[in-house]
């Protein structure tokens, strides 16, 4: 099973290594991980997607909480959260295929951010499924290169995951 956790960490050198080291040492599988500063530059927020059953998830949360630089660990219930991922995809395009690609892009509410005679770069945001679906659709034209961020996630409503109380 896949789980998503949000981790607030001190923004210090080596923290990412501590976290990835913990995952590999304890045999936990990271599906994706994304990091960025929070509104308070002293802290960063990681969104980690983990594969495993509930026992594994509980250990992941407890072991992460033991790290001195980890301030908070929160499980995010997928039912109650919004999830987004960003991908930029370079696809082959020529005058015969370009308009078809542009149609697909508009159906997905994606955007074209670079155009050249032989290729296009497409930017898409959405949940994992949407990005997967667009990727699938674009494959027929030839995906030359792709960069995905891994997902970021947040609980709906007024509940917050942050460093303070």
């Amino acid at each position: 099973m896949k789980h998503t956790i949000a981790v607030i960490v001190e923004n210090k050198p080596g923290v990412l290594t501590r976290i990835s080291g913990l995952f590999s040492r304890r045999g936990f599988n990271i599906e994706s991980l994304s990091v960025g500063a929070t509104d308070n530059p002293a802290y960063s927020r990681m969104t980690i997607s983990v594969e495993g059953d509930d026992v594994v998830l509980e250990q992941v949360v407890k072991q992460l909480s033991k790290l001195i630089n980890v301030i908070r660990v929160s499980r995010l219930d997928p039912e109650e959260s919004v999830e987004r991922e960003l991908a930029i995809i370079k696809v082959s395009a020529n005058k015969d295929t370009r308009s078809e690609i542009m149609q697909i892009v508009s159906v997905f509410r994606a955007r074209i951010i670079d155009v050249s005679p032989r290729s296009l770069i497409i930017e898409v945001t959405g949940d994992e499924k949407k990005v997967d679906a667009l990727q699938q659709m674009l494959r027929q034209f030839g995906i030359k290169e792709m960069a995905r961020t891994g997902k970021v996630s947040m609980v709906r409503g007024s509940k917050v995951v942050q460093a303070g109380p």
Partner: protein
Amino acid sequence: MMVRMTGAEAIIECLRREGVEVIFGLPGGVLLPLYDALYSSDLRHILVRHEQAAAHAADGYARATGRVGVCLATSGPGATNLVTGIATAYMDSVPIVAMTGQVNTGLIGKDAFQEADITGITMPITKHNYLIKRSKDIPRVFREAFYIARTGRPGPVLIDLPRDVTVDELEFDYPEINLPGYNPTTKVHQLQIRRAAEALMAAERPVIYAGGGVRYANAHEELFQLATRLNAPVTTTLMGLGCFPTDHPLSLGMLGMHGTKYANLAVQEADVLLAVGARFDDRVTGKIASFAPKARIIHIDVDPAEIGKNVRVDIPVVGDAKIALTELLKHVQQKPWGEWNEKILMWKKEYPLRYTRDENVIKPQFVVEKICELCPDAIIVTEVGQNQMWAAQFFKHRDPRKFITSGGLGTMGYGFPAAIGAKIGRPECEVIDIAGDGSFQMNIQELATAVVNDIPVKIAILNNGVLGMVRQWQTLFFGKRYSHTTLGDVPDFVKVAEAYGALGLRATKPSEVEDVLKEGLASDKPTVMDFIVHRDEKVSPMVPAGASLSEILELDS
């Protein structure tokens, strides 16, 4: 008013403020400024002959005193030599602060001479570690390091000190601890305590399983009260030996692979198992799926991550063992001695720890029994292997801080330097390292440290000429194919001892054992006692690795 000083002076000041009385270490190029500051301070420094011994000595000191042990090594090879000692302390939750020299900050990452990424290397074997990049961070980091090492579940903390950081000046200020990500749990959840108390009161066949956490929390008295009030038998792990007197009628001795048969049977029959400060290690549980199959499990531990890690727990209690047991005591009443206690007495009679005596060959178990008889209050330190198990089984452990052994990592070579550390921390106690000939040779060079610094530890080698524990497995599980486990009868340990200026004694017959022990214990010098034992003596009983605790082999020598 703030005082200006160099990084090295600030380090000495921090150590002084943390109440450090001794450092175990060995210098090198990048540490010269720090060693120079040490030279004019009154901090005691013990110069070891190998940095591994510095880490083990700091660890032995910490276990014997309950204070934080400190060791120091230079960059590169000095730092990597500490690694085994740090890992040993980590596995057994021992509070030490390890300081390492590092190349100048400007050279880090350039593969400079004697550069090693020691914070990277030790990340998985420390509770936390630091690389200090500015000398003004020294006071904060040292204060945090000592605090982290000794609080919550204790453990080693490493501080890496680039040379320039020890030279640069700073305004000394010892800031209050501010660690938003570190909040060790101490208080306990009252509802869980009440549930635990109810389960224990309702139990017909309770067993208490106590580990090293009881010792670190100083909770042995509360444990004793709880056990006697409930009339609940107590078994301990290797790390928990001494937390409950092994000669008490409720004592089951040690459980697990080389535990007593009655401890293992009791655990398998128990209807409620109370685990306190123990972590369900595989050497304790045997095959996990069939461990304590009939029991509801209550688990008290200061580390929330231990709960549910290896076994399912019915009643988790996160918190300090002393506080949790004190709270539990408020909710349990005296229970009578019952059928379960009688059954256990019967098992104890039927399956005692035993060995066959011999008039011509020294039995290692006999040596341990004699040590116990002549010196019941000694601090016993062990090496690893059969010697360790015999010391665990045949010494009557009564004091939680007087049995010191590498349990989690099983580090050969640990015992002797740890004994040096223990003796420095508790000079009034006799300190005896019960050793194997293989293990002792892994840090035998520390005889020089003991002699030069006049640290009169006693080493009792149970000399079987083999890597005995490995040989035992070869005998039992590999058709007696003794692949590379024979050490032979070199060196002559008596001569080695003498060469170092220590006292060397030898016993080859049972009749000589007592005299050698008496002479060795009376000596005021570091003393090596070489007891020649048979190489086929086995540790018994034994639950083979991966078998269930009920599958207990009783082995003849």
